[in-house]
């Protein structure tokens, strides 16, 4: 239903999302059995030059859920995440095979316009990376490059996004200040707000709290719980407790393969693969 056109239809989208919200209630009650997927990955393989980083990945990401990706360092978590918005292509030696569909569109096709995909799929990075601009400009950047010029609309988007990332109260009096004057945790929420400003459908997060202190981490986790209502979220994390706390589904990666993918409760209480159990219990040690 959400088309891949540029966001001059933003206003229309808001109306749609209200409709969605009402039908949503019905959907959650009756569709728990087979929820809608946003991403379907089929036999995905990825190589960095000769390094076979992802091997025969088959995974579905469900709508309005938090999907956690866990696994030891170097197992391909970030690589998979970056494949979902094709950021992985920034590495020139990358080759892929297999199919990823996003809402039934095959996104790995060269003909698929990557900018359209990234307009629908936001990303939050491990290290907060705001632009060296004012807080306001950081949030307005996305809408601006997609053609929104009207100052009033931009003001609204900025406020809404900052509220959405629950940082509005902290920064509302200093919107004109450089974002680099904020703490790491605040910067990360600015980056989340920047992502929300273009109202994507999916948010990809690569260890978004690993550079943050426990308190900021908690705030971001709470935020993710909030965002889940409107967005599908895929999060890579090294923190088992975090995965257990905030995610609905968990995928365990090992050496470029998906060892196990199931509901988070199942993974953490009753994993079917020994390696999953070893990894999880090792971590809890």
């Amino acid at each position, binding site marked *: 239903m959400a088309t891949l056109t540029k966001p001059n239809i933003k206003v229309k989208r808001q109306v749609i999302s209200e409709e969605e919200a009402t039908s949503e209630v019905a959907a959650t009650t009756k569709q728990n059995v087979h929820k809608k997927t946003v991403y379907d990955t089929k036999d995905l393989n990825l190589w960095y030059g000769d390094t076979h980083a992802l091997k025969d990945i088959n995974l579905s990401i469900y709508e309005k859920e938090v999907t956690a990706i866990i696994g030891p360092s170097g197992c391909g978590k970030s690589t998979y995440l970056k494949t979902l918005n094709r950021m992985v292509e920034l590495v020139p030696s990358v080759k892929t095979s297999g199919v990823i569909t996003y809402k039934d569109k095959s996104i790995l096709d060269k003909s698929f316009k990557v900018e*359209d995909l990234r307009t629908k799929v936001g990303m939050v990075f491990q290290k907060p990376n705001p*632009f*060296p601009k004012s807080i306001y400009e950081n949030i307005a950047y996305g809408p601006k490059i997609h053609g929104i010029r009207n100052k009033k609309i931009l003001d609204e988007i900025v406020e809404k996004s900052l509220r959405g990332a629950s940082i509005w109260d902290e920064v509302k009096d200093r919107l004109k200040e450089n974002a680099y004057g904020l703490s790491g945790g605040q910067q990360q929420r600015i980056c989340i707000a920047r992502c929300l400003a*273009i109202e994507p459908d999916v948010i990809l997060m690569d260890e978004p709290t690993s550079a943050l202190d426990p308190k900021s981490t908690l705030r971001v986790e709470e935020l993710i719980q909030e965002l889940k209502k409107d967005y599908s979220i895929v999060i890579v994390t090294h923190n088992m407790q975090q995965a257990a706390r905030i995610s609905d589904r968990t995928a365990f990666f090992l050496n470029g393969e998906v060892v196990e993918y199931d509901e988070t409760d199942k993974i953490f209480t009753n994993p079917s693969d020994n390696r999953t159990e070893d990894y999880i219990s090792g971590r809890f040690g």
Partner: protein
Amino acid sequence: MALDNKIDNQDKPSIQDMIAKKKNGKNLTSITEKVIPVLLFLIAAVSIFTTIGIVYTLLIETIEFFKRVPVMDFFTGTALKPLSQNPEFGVLPLINGTIISSIIAMLVAGPIGIMTAVFLSEYASERVRRTLKPMLEILAGIPTIVYGFFAFTFVTPLIREVFPSVEATNILSPGLVMGVMIIPMIASLSEDAMTSVPNAMREGALALGATKLEVTFRVVIPAALSGIIASFVLGISRAIGETMIVTIASGSSKNFTFDITQSMQTMTAYIVEVSGGEAPAGSTIYFSLYAVAMTLFVFTLLMNLLARYVSRKFREEY
């Protein structure tokens, strides 16, 4: 293990012993520790005192000049006739020539330099960059007299082929060539500024659906702006101070005009011409050299101050 054995070995001194030995023999070290900073200060002082000396001389001789020629005549006079029966010493023709040649040069060097920098830092593959950068450096290493010669014997005739009304000596040709000379400086400094913008920022923008062009012009260039402006200002300073090219290719008419097809003289070229033998020490012409040099100095000084102010104002911290 092997290391442990060695250290425990009685024949060999332990590391702590060696350190203690070094510490005991530290008399010499402590002297050098004290002497070196003084020495360094003296060396640094040489350049400071030289600068002060130069400015002092300029100032004294300039004051002498203004005892003979009223300040207002100098700064508002549009006629410069140092050798005439009734000499006039208006500096405006020289300032005009300097500014016009610098503008022409920057119109060439600015856009080409920055586009080159964008290409090198954002689009070129590692291999292309590795071949192009040394070539730029070669361009930067050509002596200016060669550029001057090139302007006079190649560029001017070429321009006159197309526009026959252009004079044999004119400000356009050396201006253009000066621009070519400055390209490497702007390209290389701007490229440095752009490459040092962290990749995380490009990724942040790309992840929002920005195209490569949008990333370049709305993230990278703004983030590198202070460096880019600094390169421009250095380029302008270079153009203002450039001597050989204009001396050779623009002749020595002290016209006060905005017609770039005519010959004009810059401050630097005037200094070359006059100090080339026609100025007996103590004459007004002789002192006019200092007044012009002082003006030139103030010009470059202002440029540098402006550069600082602007680059601080536009700085995007990251």
